């Protein structure tokens, strides 16, 4: 058997078994999220009744904090892990349902303005991260992964690019760890900066959608500011996500031209495979809402379903973030990511200020 490669076996998965496996973790997401909602409702009341000065903490932050506390103390037991990993599924379902809260005309108007900002952000982020990666002597493919992660959409973009440019598992885990750690920091710093600068809900939402890399963290950072900011953060981030295929394709061409990745055959098929399908779902639900397919009460019900889906997502953001595990991934990629993120956040904030004047947000 000389020359053969040991490959992981792809075993057929029993769908019923798979479903049962995720139930404990989904219940944990629901319990953590609901505890966050209960704390939001009751802590403020309790503090007021006892004449304490206590800031009003939203359920989003409570859910993330409870999740972080579990993940970083007792850890998430094995039985819950498969279900906790479904938080991205709930995020995407929540985004599609959120489409009911947008009229298609608003989506096109806001999405058009966001698209211009997103285009500038992607070009600047890729150029700057590439420069930083070279300056710090990172491996070229790790630099590419960090650049894509910070320019487009965090973990999904890194995974899509990893496959397209044949990057190492180690490089992609470095890049994912850096992007996740920085996303967790953004949850706590962005709302503070937004309030300090007295940003409007609109401006703050667009900024979060432009500068926070992972979609779950972008949605959470927006929702921590206000409901309206959360909506705008998701819309801007979804616009960024929609461009993932083009950026990954460009990187695939670049590495293939250097003989270090497989050449791309059918470009249209490649773009379709990488295109996030939930963006189409969001647009379709938005089109149905615009065509008055849903009554006002039904739109309100869909909006609440979207909030429940996001609640599971925010619980998952805390539960899957383990600072000890992230810190083991090495300092250099984190340093490059951190410097890059700070510069990109400052640059996109400038862009938002400029857009605020043009679009009168």
């Amino acid at each position: 058997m000389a020359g053969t490669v040991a490959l992981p076996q792809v075993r057929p998965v029993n769908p019923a078994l798979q479903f049962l496996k995720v139930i404990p973790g989904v219940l944990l997401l629901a319990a953590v999220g609901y505890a966050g909602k209960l704390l939001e409702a009751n802590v403020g009341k309790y503090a007021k009744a006892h004449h304490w000065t206590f800031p009003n903490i939203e359920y989003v932050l409570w859910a993330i904090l409870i999740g972080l506390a579990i993940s970083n103390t007792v850890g998430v037991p094995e039985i819950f892990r498969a279900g906790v990993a479904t938080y991205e599924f709930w995020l995407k379902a929540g985004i599609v349902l959120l489409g009911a809260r947008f009229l298609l005309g608003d989506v096109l108007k806001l999405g058009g303005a966001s698209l211009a900002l997103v285009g500038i952000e992607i070009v600047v982020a890729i150029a700057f991260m590439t420069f930083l990666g070279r300056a710090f002597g990172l491996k070229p493919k790790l630099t590419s992964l960090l650049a894509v992660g910070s320019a487009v959409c965090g973990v999904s973009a890194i995974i899509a690019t990893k496959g397209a440019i044949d990057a190492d598992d180690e490089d992609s885990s470095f890049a994912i760890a850096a992007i996740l750690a920085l996303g967790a920091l953004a949850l706590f710093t962005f709302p503070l900066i937004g309030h300090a600068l007295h940003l409007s809900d609109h401006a703050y939402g667009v900024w979060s959608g432009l500068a926070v890399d992972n979609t779950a963290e972008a949605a959470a950072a927006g929702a921590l500011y206000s409901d309206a900011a959360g909506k705008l953060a998701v819309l801007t981030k979804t616009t960024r996500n929609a461009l993932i295929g083009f950026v990954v394709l460009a990187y695939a061409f670049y590495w293939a031209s250097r003989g270090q990745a497989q050449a791309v055959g059918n470009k249209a098929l490649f773009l379709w495979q990488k295109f996030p399908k939930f963006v189409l779902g969001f647009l379709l639900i938005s089109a149905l809402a615009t065509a008055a397919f849903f009554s006002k009460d039904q739109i309100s019900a869909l909006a609440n379903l979207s909030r429940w889906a996001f609640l599971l997502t925010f619980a998952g953001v805390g539960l899957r973030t383990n600072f000890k595990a992230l810190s083991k991934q090495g300092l250099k990629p984190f340093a490059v990511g951190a410097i890059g993120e700070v510069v990109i956040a400052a640059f996109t904030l400038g862009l938002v200020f400029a857009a605020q004047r043009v679009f009168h947000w």
Partner: protein
Amino acid sequence: MSQQEQTAAAPARQRGLSIDAWAVLLAFVLAALVRAGVFKHIPW
């Protein structure tokens, strides 16, 4: 990609719908149930 890797990658591609597609499907089913009046009020 070597032939062996291609062989290994093929079944993974044929495993059915992606997580995105399942999420869209769930959202549409929920929207259809709300539209049909099965879920009249979702509390928050």
